[in-house]
C-alpha cells in the first residue's frame, strides 16, 4: 500500500511538472509540407535558439472546424494557427479567435511603424499577415511546343489550347477566373459577380470547358496532375508550382495574368492557454528580416514592404526569389485580391450552387 501511495504521488508530481513545463511550449499549427518547412527554417529555429521555448509544430488541412471544436469544448490546445484571410474574418465574427494588439509589432529597420510597413489590408483585428500567396494557372511546356497560353482567356479557350485542365473543386476562385477569362477586368470582377447575371455569366463560362476539367482538392494535387500528364494546364497555388520547377525540374510555366492573391495570417484561438507567449512569437516572426528569410524557402511574398528588398536566393535551389513572388511588379499587372468579405456573404449559396452544378 505504501509503495502504491508513493507511486501515485510520484505520478501526480510528474503530471504537475509536465503542466508547468507546458507554459514554455507553443503549439503552432500550419499547412504542412514545404510551407511549414519554410516557417520552421525562418521562424521556429531562430526563435527556439533565442528564447529556449519549445515549439510543437502540428499540421492541419485548413478551415476552422478544429478551432471551433476546441473553443466550444473549452479545451484549446492550439496556441497559434496559420489561417487564410477568409477564415480569420469568419473566426473573428464568430468569436473563435482572440483579438490581437497591433501596437506591439516591431517597426521596420528604417523606423517606419509597423502599421505603415505592412502592406494595405494585411493587418486584421484577429490576425497578422505573414505572406501573400496566389492562385495562378500553370501549363506544361512540353504540351505546347508552339508557344503556350498567355492570358486568363487562353485558359478557357480549348480550341486554341486543347487539353485537359485541372481546377479547384469549389466556386472560389473559379468564378473570378471565369469572369476574367470572359474579359472582365480585375477591378470589376466582384462588381459583376454581385449581380445574379454576373454569377450566371461565370457559370456559363465554366460550362464551356467543363467537359475538359478535372477537379482537385488538395494543393499538392495540381503539380502532380501536371507531372503525370493527366492535364495540360492547372490552376494551382504559385508556391507549389515554383517548388516543382525549382527543386524537381518540372517543365511548368506560370501564367500570372489574372492571378487571384490572398493572405495567410497568424491567429490565436480564443482561450489559448499561452496567449502571451504566442503574441511574443507573432512579434518575432513578423519582423522585417524574418519575413524576408521565409521567402528564401518558398515563393510566397512577404507582407511587409520593407522585407521585399531583402529577399535573396532560394536556400537550396539558388534561384533568385524576387521575380517568383506574386507581388513582383511584372507578375502583378492584372491581379485580383480575393475579396473575403464578398465570399463570406455569398459562400453558402455559391457552394450549394457549385455542388449542384457539378452533380448535374
Amino acid at each position, binding site marked *: 500500500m505504501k509503495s502504491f501511495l508513493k507511486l501515485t504521488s510520484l505520478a501526480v508530481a510528474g503530471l504537475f511538472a509536465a503542466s508547468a513545463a507546458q507554459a514554455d511550449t507553443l503549439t503552432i499549427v500550419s499547412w504542412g509540407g514545404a510551407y511549414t518547412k519554410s516557417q520552421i527554417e525562418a521562424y521556429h529555429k531562430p526563435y527556439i535558439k533565442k528564447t529556449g521555448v519549445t515549439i510543437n509544430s502540428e499540421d492541419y488541412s485548413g*478551415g*476552422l*472546424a478544429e478551432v*471551433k471544436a476546441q473553443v466550444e469544448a473549452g479545451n484549446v490546445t492550439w496556441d497559434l494557427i496559420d489561417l487564410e484571410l477568409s477564415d480569420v474574418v*469568419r473566426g*473573428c*465574427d*464568430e*468569436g473563435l479567435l482572440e483579438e490581437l494588439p497591433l501596437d506591439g509589432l516591431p517597426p521596420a529597420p528604417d523606423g517606419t511603424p509597423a502599421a505603415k510597413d505592412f502592406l494595405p489590408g494585411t493587418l486584421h483585428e484577429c490576425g497578422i499577415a505573414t505572406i501573400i500567396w496566389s492562385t495562378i494557372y500553370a501549363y506544361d511546356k512540353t504540351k505546347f511546343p508552339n508557344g503556350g497560353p498567355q492570358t486568363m482567356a487562353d485558359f478557357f479557350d480549348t480550341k486554341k489550347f486543347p487539353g485537359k485542365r485541372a481546377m479547384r*473543386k469549389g466556386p472560389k476562385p473559379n468564378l473570378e477566373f471565369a469572369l476574367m477569362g470572359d474579359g472582365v477586368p480585375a477591378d470589376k470582377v466582384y462588381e459583376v459577380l454581385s449581380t445574379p447575371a454576373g454569377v450566371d455569366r461565370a457559370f456559363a463560362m465554366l460550362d464551356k470547358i467543363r467537359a475538359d476539367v*478535372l*477537379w482537385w482538392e488538395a494543393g499538392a494535387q495540381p503539380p502532380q496532375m501536371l507531372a*503525370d*500528364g*493527366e492535364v495540360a494546364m492547372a490552376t494551382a497555388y504559385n508556391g507549389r508550382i515554383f517548388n516543382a520547377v525549382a527543386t524537381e525540374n518540372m517543365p511548368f510555366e506560370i501564367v500570372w495574368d489574372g492571378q487571384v492573391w490572398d493572405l495567410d495570417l497568424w491567429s490565436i484561438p480564443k482561450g489559448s492557454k499561452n496567449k502571451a507567449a504566442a503574441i511574443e512569437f507573432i512579434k518575432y516572426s513578423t519582423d522585417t528580416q524574418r519575413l524576408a528569410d521565409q521567402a528564401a524557402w518558398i515563393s510566397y511574398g512577404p507582407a511587409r514592404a520593407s522585407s521585399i528588398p531583402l529577399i535573396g536566393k532560394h536556400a537550396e535551389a539558388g534561384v533568385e526569389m524576387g521575380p517568383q513572388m506574386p507581388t513582383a511588379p511584372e507578375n502583378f499587372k492584372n491581379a485580383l485580391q480575393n475579396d473575403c*468579405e464578398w465570399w*463570406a*456573404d*455569398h*459562400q*453558402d*449559396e455559391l*457552394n*450549394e*450552387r457549385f*455542388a*449542384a*452544378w*457539378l*452533380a448535374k
Partner: protein
Amino acid sequence: MADIPANQATLTTADGVPLKTKLRQTQRRMKMRALGLVLPLLAFIAVTFIWPIGLMVYRGVDNPVFSEVMPNTNAALARWDTQADEIPPEDIVAIVARDLAQARRDKTMGRVATRMNYDLPGSRSLITSSARKLAKIEGDVVWTEEMVKIDKRWGERKTWMAMRLASERYTMAFYMAALDRTFDEDGNITMQPEERQIYVTLFLRTVWVSLLITVLCILLAYPISYLMATLPLRTSNLLMVMVLLPFWTSLLVRTTSWIVLLQKQGVLNDILVFIGVFSDEGRIRMIYNMTGTVIAMTHILLPFMVLPLYSVMKTISPSYVRAARSLGATPARAFWKIYFPQSVPGIGAGSILVFILAVGYYITPALVGGESGQLISNFIAFHMQKSLNWSLAAALGGILLGGVLALYWIYNKLVGIDNMKMG
C-alpha cells in the same frame, strides 16, 4: 369427506408464503441480476450512442444565437402583425436596432450575421455594417428611417421576415434547408431556387447507390458463400482466408489500391491498351466517378454479406436438397424450392448490414467518387469541416438516421426481424 377450505388450496412454501408470490419474487430477483449484468453495456451505449445522437438531432432544431446575442428581438418581431404591416412598425424596429447596436458593442454580431446569412444569402455584411453604424447613433431618432438610410434592404419585407424566422428559439429552417426547401417572404415553405437544389438529389442518389451495392454484394457473395459452406474443409478454409484477408486490411489501403488499379494510367487501363482493346488515347475513366464509388464500396462491403450468408448456409442440411432430388426435382427446382428459402435469413442479415453501412459511407466516396460519386455523408462532412454550418450537418444527419430507421421498420414489416440470422 370434509370440504377443503378454498385458501388451503393454494400451495405454500415451507415458511408459509404462497408459492405464486415466492415464484414472482425469485423471478424478479433473477431479472434484476440479469439487468445488473447488462448495465455496464447499457450505460456505455447511452453515453456513447444515444446521448450524442440525441444531441445531434437536437442541434438540427436548436437556434440559440438570437436569444443569446439579441435577447429582445425575437419577442419584438413576434408581435409584428405580418398580415397588416409590410415591414415591422417603428417601435419594433427600435428594439431590433438597439439590440443590433448592443451586439456590435459586445462584439457578438458576427454570430447573428452568420446565422442570418444561412437563410438570406448576402445578409451577413448587411448585419455587420448596419450594426457598426447603428452603434454610433445616440439619442432618439426614427430608427426605421435611419436603418433604411444605412441600407435600403431594411425597407424590404424579405429582410425582416428572414430575421423573424432566424430569431426563433427553435427552428425548422435547417431541416427545411436539408430538404432543399426554404421560407418565402410570407413565411410559407417553398422550394429553393432550382440552381441551389442539391440535397434531395443526394439523398436519393445515396439510397440508390446503397441499394445497387447491396444487390451486387448479394450476387457476388451468394456463390462464394455456397462454395464455402459445401466444399471440403481444406478448400473452404482457403476461401475463408481469401474473404477475411481483405476484411482485415485497412480501409484506406483497399481504397487506394483501387485507385492504383483503375485510374487512367493504372494497371487495368495499361493491360487493356497493351492487349489492344483500345488505343492509348482511348483510355477509359473507371475511377473518380460513380463507377469508382460503386466498385470500391462493393468490394469493401462484400465480407459483410459473405459472413452472415456463410454462417446461415452452414446450418442448411444437405439432406433436404438430396431428398428433393430423390423425389424427382430438377437441380434448379431443388435449389430454388428447398435451398434458397432456407438461405433467405442470411440474405436479409447481410443486406441490412451492407445497406446501412453503405448509406453512411464517407471515406471511400470522398477518395474515389470524383464529382459525380459523392454521397450525402460527404456533404455532412463538408458542413462540419468547411462551411461550419453544424446545424445543417445535424439536420442532414437527422434525416439520414430517420430514413434508416424507417427502412428498418419496413424491413421488419415485410420480412420480420426475427427471420434475420447472423449465424
